[in-house]
């Protein structure tokens, strides 16, 4: 392997920006998205949920935390005794289920997104350093990652939540702190192969600092894999958040979360099926949309998968 200077500029440009023969990558991306039925459906669902979360105050017919004992456990409007002002019925404290689902989407998306950012930051930093510098640093960081992988995430979360007590911020950091291992491994693997490529050797030959090589030459090449993993990871994080809130260790009342609603509804299952049913449907559809979108992104952004498919 020889690294020569004249090829550096060419490969570097190729790696960091889109190749020249595709004039508009964004247009191409959307054309591909529309062609993939599940990808388009995924994007549509995700957009709907995001809009739901943003417009919850205007869309929700009632205050999500206002209790009204006179109207407790009203069935959905299409059932006998159902009232049109509560389309999906009310819960054990007379709160409107539809309004609570709309507001619950805020928490799910907020926690899902923030926790993935925290996990991604930790994982990417560890992966970059581990892969780039190698040696004892790599050995220590990777053994730590292995140890983290050996223990189920949820155990860590439970211990931390038991010690710190549940709150929104704790929850985000707990979810982020326990889910960085995937990123660390992925980034390290990518860095190991990228750092041997000619444009990195070239950058080093002209005297670029380590920090510059990492930020300008390696990081941009890791981004697409990062986006793919992050998207799918938002889906699992939303389920984890719901699970923890269901167990009473996540979001605390009066904040509204889908997991917490399920936990309320479970106690009234024998008489009022709707309280536990609708929040679960909301979680499933949201997660399904994110998985569809994530799978589409993986198929389009991950060049290795594309090569395998072409074969």
């Amino acid at each position, binding site marked *: 392997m020889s690294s020569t200077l004249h090829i550096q500029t060419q490969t570097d440009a190729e790696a960091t920006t889109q190749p020249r023969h595709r004039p508009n990558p964004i247009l191409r991306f959307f054309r591909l998205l529309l062609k993939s039925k599940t990808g388009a459906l995924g994007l549509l669902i995700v957009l709907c949920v995001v809009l739901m979360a943003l417009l919850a105050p205007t869309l929700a017919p009632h205050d999500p935390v206002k209790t009204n004992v006179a109207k407790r456990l009203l069935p959905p409007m299409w059932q006998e005794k159902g009232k049109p002002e509560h389309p999906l019925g009310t819960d054990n404290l007379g709160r409107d289920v539809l309004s609570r689902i709309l507001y619950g989407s805020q928490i799910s998306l907020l926690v899902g997104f923030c926790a993935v950012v925290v996990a991604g930051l930790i994982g990417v930093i560890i992966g970059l350093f581990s892969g780039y510098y190698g040696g004892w640093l790599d050995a220590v960081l990777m053994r730590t990652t292995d140890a983290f992988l050996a223990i*189920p*995430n*949820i155990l860590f979360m439970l*211990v931390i939540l038991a010690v710190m007590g549940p709150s929104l911020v704790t929850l985000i950091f707990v979810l982020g702190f326990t889910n960085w291992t995937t990123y660390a491994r992925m980034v390290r693997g990518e860095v190991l192969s990228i750092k041997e490529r000619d444009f990195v050797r070239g950058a080093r030959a002209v005297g670029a600092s380590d920090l510059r090589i990492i930020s300008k030459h390696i990081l941009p090449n890791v981004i697409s894999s990062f986006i793919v993993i992050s998207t799918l990871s938002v889906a699992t994080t939303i389920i984890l958040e719901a699970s923890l809130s269901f167990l009473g260790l996540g979001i605390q009342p009066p904040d509204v979360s889908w997991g917490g609603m399920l936990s309320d509804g479970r106690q009234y299952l024998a008489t009022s099926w709707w309280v*536990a049913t609708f929040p*679960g449907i909301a*979680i*499933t559809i949201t997660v399904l949309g994110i*998985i569809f979108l994530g799978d589409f992104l993986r198929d389009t952004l991950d060049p290795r998968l594309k090569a395998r498919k072409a074969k």
Partner: protein
Amino acid sequence: MRKFLVRSLLQIIPVLFLITLIVFILVHVTGDPVTLMLSDTATDEDRAILIQALGLDQPIHVQYFKFLANLFQGDFGTSFRYQEPALPIVLERMPASFELAIASMIVATVIAIPLGILSATKRNSFLDIFITGSAVLGKAMPSFWLGIMLILFFAVQMGALPVSGKGGLANLILPALTLGTGVAAEMTRLIRSSMLEILQQDYIRTARSKGMMERLVVYRHAFRNSLIPVVTIMALQTSHLIGGALITETVFSWPGMGNLLIQAVNQRDMSIVQAAVFVISLLVILSNLLADICYRLIDPRMKYN
């Protein structure tokens, strides 16, 4: 094989060490164990007595070595809720957890193997789309919600099965279905993709061209070989299985370790939390090792590596 076993067992030690360190740091440094253990009405004098009794006035490394020394003797402290040593309480719950885990693995295998094979052999058919679609749905559905829906349908509406608790086989069905479905979704996907890759191999073409019956080609050649990657990836599922078990046990009030741990976390019974986390982690590590051994036994090619 022996060399591999010795090396793997040695590799467990630093991992276990790290687990003890993390649990110790979390409980003793970030939180205040005294406040966690005392009731709100405790006086300063009570605090001082407890601090001395727990050895918390000693330097932190001395505390850690004490913690480790106790741990080697199986002493995780006394549960303040049960007023008994923590480890036996956790171990007592182990058989129930095993029962549920095994039952759900059986459910998962029974669902996933036929569906995975069907979906691969009838690739891109309506059936394939239906099966892969259901697998994605199974992944997207939170397991505890599936559990609640199963209770709603089979226990509340039909009255056919008990809502919760442990007893006969009938009590096992709903929790095992709940936990098994998630694993089955992942397993079906794996078997399908593994089968698809193997069905394109040369030896499959050879088997077909010599006039072998398609069913024999699928079962004797393709399916057996497709299990190799499935076994490895299933091993990584153990930790997901345990995560799911924690919640499933709570939904169905199943008297396993998961249920105990969640209760202990809610009540801040830290001795039980430490003991349960340690035992469950150890089980996960051992099952990963076991899967690694199985993998080597199934795939003769591994011997040369």
